[in-house]
Each structure stands twice: as structure tokens, then as C-alpha cells.
């Protein structure tokens, strides 16, 4: 600092100590977000218009990847598998978790915290370890499940490779792993419902079912929306389980989900442009579903 600069009273933004603090507090997080999240997703859109193997420079191919996607039977199959998995797991898991949460919410019930803790354990374990354990249970030759059904005379099943059973087996595993998480969220939502509503309903002579139908469910709608949307997003991303259940030979066609196909294309076949296109399309699908869900619940809410 020399004497000349002292005279003009004009203050620059970087001389304001508060602004300097704000910037130094925000910049680390914002920089990482921009560099590793925002710019990459813009780059992903760009990459989806190219053909690129990571070795030679990317070639602009216009909409070729998207056209190819429309005619790609393996992509369609993976997408249908993902939809089947989502449509099977989300409603079942939501309904099941909601039922358990309603039961745990009963005032007379003792050991509520213990049950909640036990139900929650599977979600904290990595899907990789979970899938190894279930792969053992589903093992066609020595698995416990086939041993159990053999006792009632049902022949051995190929749980994860039979096209009819692969996705249902994955759904069962998912419900088992995630219902405890949903129960915790539902319980939090139930706690937020004021008890006066129930007292009033009891005065009016409403029975348990009517209370659930006309008080609990409508007031729980935002929580349900949250649970459903999170479950849809999660199930569209399923990957670890499929990779482990598939093993060395890779998952059977009936178990290949879209994120697995994306991974296979990008990091197995080095079709980076095409792999990214799959990601962009899947992301847009999720976005549309999520927005539709939000609007549906928002409308229900206004009524």
C-alpha cells in the first residue's frame, strides 16, 4: 500500500471484508460443484452428439447416437427391465413400508425404536455385500431358497438367471434392503400430524380405517410423494446389485438394467459418446417422471 491509494475513498468489492468472507466461504464448494457436476453434465449433453473412444478426438455425429438408441434392441430391453423393476419394487415397497410405519406408530406399541433400528440395518450395508449374500441364498444348486422350496416339493429354480424370475428376485432383494429406510421417513411424517385431528375424528365416531383413510393418508401425502420419488430415482440407478448377481459372465439379458448397459457401453466397449447418450436419455426420463409426480401431488394437495 502506498500513499496515493489512500486518498480515493472508493471501495472495491474485494476490499469489503464481508464480501471477501462470503466469497472465501462459498467458493470452495461452488468451484467443485461447477467443475465436477455442472460442467460435466453440460459436457454430457455435448458428448451425446459425438462418437468418441477416448483415444482419438471426438467426432461430431449430430443425432446419430439418439437415432441408434431408438433402434437398439439391447437398450430397449434394458430400459424395459428398468421399468419393470421400478414398477414392481416402488409400489410394493412403499405400501409395505407405509403399513409397517402405521403399525409402529400405534401408541400402545412397545419396542418401537428397537424394531425401527433392526429394520434399518440392511440399508447401511453396501449393495455389493448385500448382493453377495443374496446371491448365495439364490444359488441354484446349494442356495437356501431352493432348499426351502424343495421341502414343499417345488423343483429348483434359477432365481437370477431365469428370465421370468430375474427381476422379481431383484425386487424382493430391494424391498428387503430399503423398506426400513422408508419406514423411518414415514414415521417422521406421521409424527408431524397433529393429534387433534384424530381426537376430533374419534368424537365423530370414525373407526380406525376411516381415520387412516381420511386423516392420515391425505396429511401424509407430501411424505409419500417424497418416498415414491426417491424410490423411483433409486431404482432407475440400480447397478451394483446387477453387476454382482451377474458375476463373471455378466448378468443375463433379463437382468441388464439401463445403468449397467451404460457402464458396459462406456467403460466396457469405450463407446463414450453412446454411453453418455444413454445416460442423458435416462436422466430425462427420471426428470419427466419426477415432475409428473410433483405436479400430481401438488394438484391433489390443492383439492
Amino acid at each position: 500500500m502506498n500513499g496515493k491509494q489512500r486518498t480515493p475513498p472508493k471501495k472495491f468489492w474485494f476490499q469489503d471484508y464481508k464480501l471477501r468472507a462470503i466469497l472465501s466461504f462459498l467458493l470452495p464448494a461452488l468451484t467443485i460443484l461447477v467443475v465436477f457436476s455442472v460442467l460435466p453434465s453440460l459436457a454430457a449433453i455435448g458428448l451425446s452428439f459425438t462418437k468418441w473412444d477416448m483415444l482419438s478426438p471426438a467426432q461430431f455425429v449430430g443425432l446419430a447416437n439418439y437415432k441408434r438408441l431408438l433402434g437398439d434392441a439391447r437398450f430397449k430391453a434394458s430400459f424395459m427391465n428398468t421399468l419393470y423393476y421400478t414398477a414392481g419394487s416402488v409400489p410394493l415397497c412403499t405400501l409395505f413400508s407405509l403399513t409397517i410405519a402405521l403399525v409402529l406408530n400405534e401408541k400402545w406399541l412397545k419396542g418401537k425404536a428397537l424394531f425401527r433400528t433392526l429394520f434399518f440395518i440392511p440399508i447401511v450395508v453396501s449393495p455389493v455385500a448385500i448382493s453377495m449374500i443374496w446371491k448365495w441364498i439364490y444359488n441354484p444348486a446349494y442356495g437356501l431358497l431352493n432348499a426351502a422350496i424343495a421341502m414343499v416339493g417345488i423343483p429348483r429354480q434359477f432365481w437370477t438367471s431365469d428370465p421370468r424370475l430375474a427381476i422379481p428376485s431383484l425386487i424382493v432383494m430391494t424391498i428387503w434392503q430399503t423398506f426400513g429406510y422408508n419406514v423411518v421417513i414415514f414415521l417422521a411424517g406421521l409424527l408431524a400430524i397433529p393429534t387433534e385431528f384424530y381426537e376430533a375424528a374419534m368424537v365423530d365416531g370414525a373407526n380406525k380405517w376411516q381415520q387412516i383413510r381420511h386423516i392420515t393418508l391425505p396429511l401424509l401425502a407430501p411424505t409419500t410423494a417424497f418416498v415414491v420419488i426417491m424410490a423411483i430415482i433409486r431404482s432407475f440407478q440400480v447397478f451394483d446389485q446387477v453387476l454382482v448377481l451377474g458375476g463373471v459372465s455378466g448378468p443375463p439379458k433379463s437382468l441388464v438394467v439401463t445403468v449397467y448397459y451404460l457402464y458396459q457401453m462406456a467403460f466396457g466397449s469405450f463407446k463414450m459418446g453412446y454411453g453418455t447418450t444413454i445416460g442423458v436419455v435416462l436422466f430425462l426420463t427420471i426428470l419427466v417422471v419426477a415432475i409428473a409426480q410433483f405436479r400430481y401431488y401438488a394438484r391433489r394437495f390443492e383439492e
Partner: protein
Amino acid sequence: MTSTVSRPRKFETTGKATIYLALTLLAVGTLFPFIWALGTSFKTEKQAIAMPPQWIPDPIRLQNYIDAWNMFPFGRFYYNTLLFAVLGMLGSIALSSLAGYALAKYQFRGQYAILIFIIATMMIPYWVNLVPVYTILAKLGWLDTYHGLIIPRLARPFGIFLMRQYIRSIPSDYIDAARIDGASEFGIFWRIILPQCTPVLATLAIFFFVEDWNSFMWPLVVTNSLEMRTVTVGLALLSGSPHRTEYALQMAAATIGALPAIAVFLAFQRYLTQGITLSGLKGQ
């Protein structure tokens, strides 16, 4: 008691007993796969594939754990995962609380826009970015390094958002008083804000730790040498290795992978469920 009163009461007790029974069965069902895996892990390979299944391993055999541990460098995997999860957690907490504080307690132009921007990035799934991020890491020479594994995951929008919401509830009077006393801006954050945030910091710590400990696709893509792999990737390698038909060994490895997360959860479960409750209520 007349019979008309006692009858419904009797119904009620059987109803309650049924519910307790159902919940207990469900709890057993939830734990069963773990117990079965644990049981298998103590058996010989021959006992593991015995039909009908042998329920209780006899004798209890620890050799599978030793074998699994030696077959792949699980010690190294553990070290990598701990480093990744702990440094990632500390860094994420630092960045989340700093950014959350700036957004909660300062007034500046574009503040709301930045908040919306951060929330919007929550929507971006990581696999959309997988190829571009991989490319950036390759260009930086960060592939197969710890900083490559950790730094891109440090800014977690959920953490920033949660910290911002929490810090907003802290009265600003303390901050103003400290400022008059001549505290620096960082001093205010460090000595006044942070100590009041312990519950939410604990929640985020567990959240981030478990998230990183269990993450799979990220370390799978970012690392490629065996010495840099994490526990989850190591497990997947083992489950796809020629040892895949050694079921007792596989279950010992799965137990090695599952135990730390379960232990952390049971030790800090109060904070974790609290955090999930907070994230759940976010939807309201």
C-alpha cells in the same frame, strides 16, 4: 366385567399379540440373511453346500476370514476405504458448513439464486456425469489417486442445504456481538457457529461416511490398480474371481464388508435416523 365389554378386549389382546408376532417375524426376516451369511462364513466348504442345510457351523472355523483377507489385499482395501470415507467426510463437512453459513447469515445479491443453483445440482445423477468426470480426472492425471477419489465428491448439495437450514435457526445476535468485539469472519464461524451445530454435523458425518464406505461405481471407475481399490470393489472382484464357488469364503468376505457399516450405524444410529428424518421432512 360383563361379557359384552370383555369380548372386544379379548379381541384386542389377540390382535396386539398378532402384531407383535408379525413385527418380530419381520425383524427376524430382516436379520436372517446376515445371520445365514455369518453362519456360512464359519463353515468348511463341504458343510456350506450340505443338503439339507446345516444350521449351526461345527466347529466354528475362522480360516475363511484369514483366506479371504489374504486372497486379495483387503487390509489395503480397508485402508483405502477408510482414507476415502474419512477424508471425504471431513472435507465435505468443512465445505458444507462454510457454504451453508455464507448462505444463511450474510445478505448479498444473488444469494437466493446461488441457493437454488445448489439445490438444482442435487437433481443431477452421478452416472450422467460419469464419462465427462472420468475425462476431466484423466486430463488432470487424477485417475487412480486418492485426491481423484475424494475431491470431486467434496461439495455435496444436500449437506450445504441442510447446514444452511440449520444455521439460519441460530440467533444472529451472537454474531453481531462477536463482530463488535472484533472477531474475524472466520473466527465467528469457527468459535460461534460451529459449536452450535454439533447435532447436524454428527448427522452429516455419519451420512457421508456410510455413503462413501458403500459407494461402488465411483471407486470402480476412478481407480484401476489393485492397490487403490476400495472394499466394495474388492468384494466385487472376489465375487467374480475363480473363488466364486467357495461359498463359505465368499460369505466371510461379505461379512468383512458389511460389519463396519453395521457397527458405525449401531454406534451412531441416533444421528443417522435423525438425519434421515430431516431429509425426509425436506419433502414437505
